[in-house]
Structure formats: C-alpha cells, structure tokens
C-alpha cells in the first residue's frame, strides 16, 4: 500500500487540469467545467438584471423615453431568454456538474469531454446572443416567440433568426449535460450508495435531467420548424398554406411548462440538503420527498395547456388541465411540510445566511404557489392572463423559488468551491436588501395586474391608476439590484480573503463534506463506501473509523494502479461494483467540435448552406475526438499491465495485487480481479449514454409524428387538393432495404464479439450498402415530387420528415463507416470494440425511427 502522501501526489498528477492557455481550452475536469458554467451563467444573470432595471425605469411612469418601443421589446425578450436559458438552467447544471460527482463519491462525470463540449456550446451561444443584441439584432417578440408574429412576413429582420438558431444551439448544451448527469448518477455512485441512499439534491438534478431529456426536444423541434419557415420558406405555422400557429403553442408549452419545474427542482433539492445540515437532523420523509419530486416531474408534462386557456379551446379540456395544474400543489405541499417538520424537530445552533435564504425561499415559494392555484382556475385566468399579475406570480416562483435557493446554495457550497467562507454580515445585508426589494417590486405588481395593466407593454396612458404601483415596483428593483451588488462584492472579497473554511464548516451530511475544500483534483483520496442515507458526520464518512470492513482491493483501485484517470462503475440500483472505466485526459476536440457546430447554427442565419458545412466540420472534429485513444482498450486485454500509450506507466500495480491481502474483504459477487474494464449492456456507461440519446431522439420523432397528425386533422382533404397521395412502392422498397440492413449488421457485430473481424467487415459493409440503397431511393423519390417544402404545409411536413429520416441514415452511414475503416486497419478487435454496442443500438433506432416515419408519411396520408 502507498502512503496517503504518495497517493495524494500520484492522484493529483493524474487528475491535474492542464496548465496554461492551451490547457484552458482542453480541460475536461468536472469541477473546472461546473465552475465555468456557474460563473458564466452568473455573468448573464447580471446582464439580464441590468436589462430588468432599464425596463422597470421605462414603465415607472407613462411615456418615459428610457427605452424606445423596439428597445423595450428586445429588452423583455432578452431578459426572459437570458434568465431561463443562459442563467437558471446553465447555473443549475453547473452546480450539478460540480456537486453530483462529489455527492456520489465519484472522481469525474461519465463523459468528461462531452461535458466540456456542452460548456463551449453554452458559451458560444450565449456570447453570440449578446453580440447580436448589442449590434441591434436582439430578438424582440418575447421568449415564447409566437408565430405568425415571428414569421418572416411580420419580422423580416435577423432578430428572430438570432433567437431561433442560438436558443436551439443552446439546447444542445442542456441536453448534453442532462445525458451526462443521468449516466453519472446511474453508473458512478460510490459502492453502497443504493437508490434509497442518493442525496436529495442528486435526485433533484437527476429528475431535472430526465425532464430535460423529454421536454427539450419539443423546443428543438418547434424552433427547427420556425427556423425552416423563416429561412427556407416552409409553412408549418402559416394558416394560409395549411399550417397552424397553435402547433407552435402546443409544442412550445409542452417544453415550456416542464421547463418551469426543470428550473425549480434543483433548488428544492439544494434547500433539502441545507436544512437538515443546519438543523442537525435528517430530512423528514426522505422517500416521500423524492417520490413527490418524481410526481411533479411527471405531472409537469400534463399541464401545458394552462398557458393556453384563452386561445379558444373547449371548456372540458381546460377543466382537465386546471385539475392537473392544481394537482401539482400536493407534492409541493409535501415538500413544504417536510421542510417545516424537519426544522420543527431540529436543533439549529445559529441562523446563518444560507438558512435565511432557504427560509426566504420557502415563504416566497408558498406565495408563488397560492397565486399559482388562483390562476389555474380557468375563469379567473381568463381575466388575469397576460397581465402584470402573471408577471408577479412567476417572479415569485422563479425569483423566490429559483434565485433564492441559488443564493442559498452559493452561501452553502462556496466554502466547498473555494475553501473560504462568504462574509455573514454582508450576507445578511444581501438577504434583506434582496428580499425586501423583491417584495416591493413584485407584491404590488399583483395589484397592477388586477388593475388591468397588460404584460409586455413599453408604456401606458396616464389616468389608469397604474403610475404609483409602477413607481413603487421600480424602487424595489433598485433595492434588489443593490442587494445583488452587495453579493458580488461579498463573493469578490471572500474569494480572495475570506476566513478559511476547512472541509466541513456546516456539519454537512453528504459526501462532498468528507473531502478537502476545495476538493483535490481527484475529489476523494479513497473511493468512499456508503453505508447510509447520510454517510458523513463531522467531516468523516461513517463507518470508516469504526473499523467496518473496507476491502483492500478497493483502496488499491483507488490508487489508479495503471496511472490512468479511472473509476469504479457500479450498478444502477444497488451500486454494487461492476467494473472499471477509464476517463479521457484533456482534449482540444470538445472546443473545436463546439466551434464547428456553431458554424452550422450561427451560419444558418445567413444561408442554409452553412448548415451542411458546419455539420461536416463537426463530423471531422468528432473523428478527431475519437482518434484520442483511451488506454482502457489496451489494458483490457491484460488487466493490470501498464498501457502501451498510457499517460504514466507504472510498475505493475494492479487490482490483482490487492488480492494477496484483500480477497476476503471483497463484497459477494465482485472479487477484485474480475472487476472488468470491458462492460457491456446496462453495465456500461456508454450504453446508458447512447440510450439516453435515443430517448431524446425518440421524443423528437414522436413529436414530429404528433405534429403531422395535428396539421392533418386541420384539413378536410389530405394531402391537400391538387397533391396526389404519395405512391407506396418506392418508399416501401427503400424502407425494406433499410430494415434488411440491420440483419447483416447485427451478424457482423456478433462476429466481432466472437473475435471474427472478417465477419464484422463483411456484415457491416453489406448493411451499409443496403442503407445506401435506401438513401438512393429516397433521393429518387423526392426528386420526382411535383411539390416542394414551400408549396404547402403538407409539402413542408413531407420534405422535412423525409429529409430528417435520410439525415439519420447519413449519420449512421458516416459513423459506421468510420468504425469500419478502423476495423479494416486492425484497430478494432474483440478486446477493443468500445462503441460497437452503441453503434448497433443506434442502427436499430434509425431503422425503427424511419419505419415510424414511413408509416406516418405513407399510411397517414391514406387515412
């Protein structure tokens, strides 16, 4: 065994983020990426705050000239878009990326390079949005962008293009982080951290990520449609050509309402970590609490129509959605009473700033909740919809329910991030200024709405009784602003010279408090073993000091015997050791891939031709990305030998060595020398990653199909008069070819598993040939159509769905060909086939998805 000092030195070196400017662009460590997310997002928060103050100034009295109508419309669009997409979601993701591995006792996220990629996408999209805004091309039709106002006809300028392309681009970042977090939580928890021992915050981030996976595709699809309407002239939302603006509203709010809870849940989880730590007792009803979060996650997908009470839908439907919306009160009430019960039975030595923010959050959340109940009542909503009352309501939920817990989290975890405490006195000033300013701004805004002032108005006529209310709100906004500045000063000062915190200043009960502040590069010197829901007491992992059996082989694994960034992989449910995974070292490709992808998204504003260019560049970067060989492929053949091209070969230490003194300690079913590198099926994090990707894509496909039938139901005749029903022959033959391609491919992959590379080469080549046949037939079919995507909405659907299916086959062919070429060059074989299973899963998905589209396009047109 190595001494702790030796281990520290060794692990520090292995996990060190690369130094220098170049290192800045290649770092992949989760804490580096998480901190970048949080800092960047907070910068956007400040920018959106400045915009908010300008807006408040403009409407404080009638006909002020602070902002022109155009500037005001850009301002409220930017404020909303920034707060949601550039602040809350990225900040909370950053918090999750930073804390989740620490809380589950891991050294890294499942896919570190993907993580870094997500940050670069976020940074590029956010900066581009603000560059466009400062250049006068800020989006100006609200964060919800209802067509037809946002169509080419009414908003010809680039403003809406900026929103459509950049926000869609940004969602790539959110989705990547979500996949990342889910895979990490399910595959990299410390041994012993069974599902019912996962900290509440991790649950919250996990549920949030799953919600992102199922909600964001709706936004991506609908902004894709709007982008196509604007850039290439399709008619998804154009009534005159058979489209429907309600399609946008349904898809947007199908994303938009879950989004509210996506923003809320992490804060709920964070506060539920703090309160137990501060009142020194476990969270009351942990299991019920987690179930309530799950219930909210599910329910939030069934309430989107409450944003559409006034569009003229049938009353029966509205009452259903009203009931569903009110139902969300119940899990929320369970949270609130759980916090109350925890506090009631707790013992709190001091009331510190983080706890003040947590209490403030609960109270503001209650207030936002009761106005939420009010506006879920359909008739009252009819009156109050789109007035300042709604603005007040959702700021109580979004500022009270999201920003306050974010502040609480910063006070609580700042010591962990920086090793220093935030100043408590400044913290109290911050809290009271912010809370009072917030209530001065928004409490009376309920009345402004009752008095009939609509939202999104840059001014109003005198004499409507709104002046004094607006003046008061503006004063409140300034108080909030001052409070925020106090906070910024506090962070600035404390980061440089605050009191040293030590590993555990609060008496925290989760694993992050059992490591140094800030944590060392490797997070945990020893791989923790978790024996309870709250494994940490007084900065130590419970059970460690009591002499409870701790397998020696685990400690040897924790020494990174091969000199790689490696980690233990555990089971999704009971967190039993299943194998080992090696993490990539720093890489420039995430940065370059994000840059290349930005060519596609940002370039689309100028010409659609830059989209294929950007995608091709991205593909090239991804090839480069995967050329960076992970050492595990080699190591897998002989567990424990040093890698040929490893970063720092070491003298033969291996898990097997642990055997001599550790075999009796090994948990049943996982003797140390059978902890494999090669993981397949649900044991492999890569499988989880690809299945989550497939979940995102499946959601997108299903929403596409739903959109097809939504537009179809709006038509008496379908396809529209003058357009022939599509012929079945050619598409069906193509579809059969594609389905047939799966058979040789599957045989080929099976051959590879059995060590027959030749079988693989032949099988996959045959499969690729069949898939190429599909593409040729698709091209011929569409070349023969006498209508185009810009002829009518039917044409838009037909061409877009055809193109979308074909694009997936192209991606499949490219990915499989690359893999095939590597196999031809002898770089893929039985022991080294990382990604083969993922590729086969993706192949099956593409076949299934195109079959679904085939049924929709060719059978749906006959129905």
């Amino acid at each position, binding site marked *: 065994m190595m001494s702790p000092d030796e281990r520290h030195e060794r692990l520090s070196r292995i996990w060190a983020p690369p130094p220098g400017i170049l290192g800045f662009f290649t770092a992949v460590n989760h804490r580096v990426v998480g901190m970048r997310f949080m800092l960047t997002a907070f910068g956007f928060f400040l920018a959106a705050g400045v915009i908010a103050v300008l807006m408040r100034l403009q409407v404080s009295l009638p006909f002020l000239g602070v902002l022109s109508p155009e500037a005001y419309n850009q301002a409220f669009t930017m404020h909303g878009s920034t707060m949601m997409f550039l602040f809350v979601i990225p900040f909370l993701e950053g918090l999750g990326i930073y804390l989740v591995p620490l809380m589950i006792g891991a050294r890294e996220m499942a896919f570190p390079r993907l993580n870094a990629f997500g940050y670069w996408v976020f940074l590029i999209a956010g900066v581009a949005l603000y560059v466009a805004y400062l250049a006068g091309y800020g989006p100006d039709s609200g964060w919800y962008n*209802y067509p037809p106002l946002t169509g080419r006809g009414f908003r010809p300028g680039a403003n809406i293009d900026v929103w459509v392309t950049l926000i869609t681009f940004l969602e790539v970042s959110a989705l990547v982080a979500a996949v990342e977090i889910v895979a990490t939580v399910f595959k990299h928890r410390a041994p012993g951290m069974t599902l019912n021992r996962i900290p509440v915050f991790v649950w919250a981030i996990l549920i949030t990520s799953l919600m992102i996976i199922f909600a964001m595709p709706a936004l991506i699809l609908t902004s894709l449609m709007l982008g196509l309407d604007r850039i290439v002239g399709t008619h998804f939302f154009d009534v005159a050509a058979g489209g429907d603006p309600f399609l946008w509203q349904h898809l947007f709010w199908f994303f938009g309402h879950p989004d509210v809870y996506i923003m809320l849940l992490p804060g709920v989880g964070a506060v539920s970590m703090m309160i137990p730590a501060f009142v*020194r007792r476990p969270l009351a009803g942990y299991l019920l609490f987690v179930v309530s979060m799950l219930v909210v996650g599910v329910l939030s997908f069934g309430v989107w129509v409450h944003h559409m009470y006034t*569009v*003229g839908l049938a009353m029966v439907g509205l009452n259903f959605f009203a009931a569903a919306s009110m139902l969300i009160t119940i899990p929320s009430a369970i949270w609130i009473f759980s916090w109350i*019960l925890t506090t009631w039975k707790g013992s709190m030595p001091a009331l510190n700033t983080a706890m003040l923010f947590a209490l403030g959050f609960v109270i503001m959340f209650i207030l936002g909740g*009761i106005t939420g109940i009010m506006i879920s009542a359909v*008739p009252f909503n009819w009156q109050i919809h789109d007035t300042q009352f709604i603005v007040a309501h959702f700021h109580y939920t979004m500022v009270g329910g999201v920003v306050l817990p974010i502040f609480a989290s910063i006070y609580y975890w700042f010591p962990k991030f920086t090793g220093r405490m935030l100043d408590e006195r400044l913290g109290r000033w911050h809290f009271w200024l912010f809370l009072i300013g917030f209530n001065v701004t928004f409490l009376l805004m309920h009345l402004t709405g009752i008095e009939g002032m*609509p939202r999104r108005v840059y001014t109003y006529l005198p004499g409507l009784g709104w002046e004094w209310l607006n003046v008061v709100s503006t004063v409140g906004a300034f108080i909030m602003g001052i409070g925020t500045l106090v906070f910024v000063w506090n962070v600035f000062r404390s980061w440089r010279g605050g009191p040293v915190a030590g590993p555990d200043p609060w008496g925290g009960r989760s694993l992050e408090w059992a490591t140094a502040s800030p944590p060392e590069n490797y997070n945990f010197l020893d791989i923790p073993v978790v024996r309870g829901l709250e494994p940490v007491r*007084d900065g130590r992992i419970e059970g460690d000091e009591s002499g409870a059996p701790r397998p020696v082989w685990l400690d040897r694994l924790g020494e990174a015997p091969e000199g790689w960034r490696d980690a233990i992989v555990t089971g999704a449910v009971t967190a039993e050791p299943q194998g080992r995974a090696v993490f990539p070292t720093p890489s420039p490709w995430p940065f370059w891939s994000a840059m290349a992808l930005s060519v596609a998204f940002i370039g689309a504003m100028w010409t659609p031709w830059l989209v294929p260019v950007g995608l091709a560049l991205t593909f090239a970067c991804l090839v480069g990305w995967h050329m960076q060989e992970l050492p595990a492929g080699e190591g897998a053949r002989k567990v424990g030998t040093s890698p040929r091209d490893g970063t720092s070969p070491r003298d033969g230490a291996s898990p097997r060595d642990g055997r001599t003194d550790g075999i009796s300690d090994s948990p049943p079913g996982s003797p140390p020398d059978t902890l494999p590198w090669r993981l397949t099926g649900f044991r492999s994090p890569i499988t989880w990653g690809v299945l989550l990707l497939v979940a995102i894509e499946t959601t997108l496909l299903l929403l596409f199909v739903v959109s097809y039938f939504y537009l179809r139901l709006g038509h008496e005749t379908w396809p529209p008069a003058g357009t022939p029903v599509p012929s079945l022959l050619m598409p069906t033959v193509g579809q059969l070819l594609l389905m047939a391609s799966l058979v040789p491919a599957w045989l080929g992959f099976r051959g590879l598993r059995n060590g027959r590379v030749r079988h693989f080469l032949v099988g996959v080549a045959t499969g690729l040939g069949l898939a190429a046949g599909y593409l040729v037939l698709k091209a011929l079919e569409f070349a023969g159509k006498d209508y185009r995507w810009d002829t009518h909405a039917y044409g838009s659907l037909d061409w877009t769905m055809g193109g979308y299916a074909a694009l997936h086959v192209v991606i499949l062919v490219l990915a499989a060909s690359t893999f095939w070429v590597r196999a031809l060059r002898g770089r893929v074989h039985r022991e080294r086939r990382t990604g083969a299973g993922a590729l086969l899963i993706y192949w099956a998905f593409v076949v299934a998805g195109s079959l679904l589209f085939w049924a929709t396009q060719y059978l749906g047109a006959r129905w």
Partner: protein
Amino acid sequence: MKAPAGSVLRLAPRRLDPRRLVPRRLVLALLPLLAVAVGGCGGPQSILGTDNPAGERIESLWWVSVLSTGILAAVVIVVLLVAARRALVAGRGASARGASAPGASARGGAGDVPVPDDAWETKFLLVVGGALPALFLVGFLVFSVRTGTAVTDAPGEPGLTVEVVGHKFWWEVRYPDQGIVTANEIRIPAGVSVEVLVSAADVIHSFWVPALTPGKIDMVPGRTNVIRMWADNPGVYRGQCTEFCGTQHALMSMEVVAVPPDEFDAWAESRRLPPLLPDDDEARRGIGVFMATGCAACHAVEGLTHPGAAGSPGPDLTDVAGRRSLGALALENSTANLLEWIRDPHQFKPGVRMPPTPLPESDLRALVRFLEGLEWEGLEREGLE
C-alpha cells in the same frame, strides 16, 4: 501533501433574537400600504368593479381564492417561522450545554437530534401535505368549474352580433346585420347580450374588456373565436390588446360605448342613410387631398371610396369625427390632435403602420376639415357622456 482537514472555522455569526426573525416594523409598515392598495382598486381597466354578471362571478372567484389560499398560506408561513424559532432555541440550548464540553466546536457537535421516526413522519406528511391540500383543492376546483360553466353559459340568445378583427395595432369593428363598419370603438346597447366574433388580420391579438367580458379571448388569424359581452349599465368601458403583437402592442386599446338600447337603435338606423359629405369649400378641397395624397389607399369612407373590406390596411374613417379617440386610444380626438396625428403619427405611436404625411399646412387643414365633418346627423358627439 496538504492536510486533508483544514482548520475548522469557528462560526460565530451575530446571534439573531429568534423572536425577530421577521422584523415587526417591516410588517407594520407594509400593512397600511396594502390597505391603500386594496382601497385604490377599481381603475378604468380593473378586473374588480365589473359591470356584468359573468365578471361579477369571476370577481367572487377571485375573492374566495385570495382569501382562502391567503389564510392557508399565512398559517403555513407562521408555522414555518415558529419551527425555525423552536430549532434556534433548541440549538442554543444544545450548544450552551455543549460549550462546556471539551472540543465542542461552534457547529455544536452536541446538538444532534435523535434518529427520527421515519414512518410516523411520512404518515404525517401524507396527511398534512397530501390529504388536507387535496380536500381544499377539490372544493376549489368544483367552485372554479362551476364558475366557468356559469360564465360561459350564454345569458340567453344574443341580441347583437359584432365582428372584431385585430390589426397591428388597431381594431376593425363590423356589425354584419346592420352593415356598419367602424374602428377602435364598439357601440353596444346596454342590457343586451352581445356576441363578439373575433379574428385577426395579421398576427395573434387578444380581445379583452375586463368590465364587460368574462376575461379575454385570443384573436387568431384563420380562426374565429366567440365571446359574450354584456354591459348592465350605459357607460364607456376600456379594453386593451393582451397578446403581444409587435412594436405598438402597448397602445392598442379600444373603448366599448354602452348606450341605452333605443339610442343604439337610433344610431344604427342613422347609419343606414348615406353619409352627409361636407359642403363647405375647404372640406371639399380636403376630399381632393384625401384622394390625391394616398389616404384612400388604406382608409375607406363610405360613399366616397369603397367600404373597407376585411383586412384593409387602415381603419374605416366613415365616422371618424364621431369617435372619441385617435390611433386606438393613443390620443383624444380633437382638431389639433387629428392634424398632428396626420402630420406624423409616429410622434405619438412610434412604429405604427401609417406613414407621416408631409403636406402643406393649408392642405393639412383642409384634410382635417373634411375628416372632422365625417359624422352622422343626429349623433351628438357629446351626447354619449
């Protein structure tokens, strides 16, 4: 190697008196403010103080919901604050006891509470957080659904049908049965149920006259939505577009003028007659300016140019002189305002579609003279008040 455990910080924040968790002075200061606020309700566009049965039912729903949820919230918040106070008191006691023990840190290692009864707590939460709110919500839902039904059950057959078409940024108003076209001002008989058919010519708008309609209804291109409007008493009621529709969404308002039914009939009857075109010289010259300058390309005047078809770019001006406002309530309708509006509407409503009209002063005056004369005989402008 760095020491894994840094020096443990001694946290000694200023001890707050638990009784002062919420500064009482703050509460006392807010109370009169709230009283003033509630007392000040009932402005021209308030949803309180409506003038029809549907609106009054919604008002009751509002009062019931704000009082019931408000009381519940107040109770929960008080319980939360009491809980925090209890915890503080308990924590103080524990750390006071623990302070004498050697090695007790400010975190109060002695303050840990015993292992809780998890099953009991879950049951408690299910009852207090689950069942009780559920009971309340069922009652509230029933009340809300019943209100909704009562509000949408039309009060009898409609006595009048009005079509309103939303434009950027004004309202086209048509009376299909009476053959009347006007803009930004809807004249209805008081005490009669009016069926309003709404749609839009360009983007989505929303129709809302808080005092007379059960809330708002969106005006969507390609769709026709229906809402009932009813004024118990004669009067002028304000309405405003509530769906963001572009640059001048803010100044897209309208008025509903409810008059006694016989007065309404007289007005409708008078509109059957051909309009009286002005007969003085200046006004006649104004007609020439109107036709030559391009006004007629967007604005219709019955008897002079074709009556506006649905979707015409500008408001019908046949009765412009009789209207109370210009530019969808942006300005009061007066000679001086009309002249300035025509000269450059963007000084009042930047972003409006009507361009500035650079005309010689005399032409402008002639044009205004003509427009000012566009009024029906028998309709007193002041007679509406």
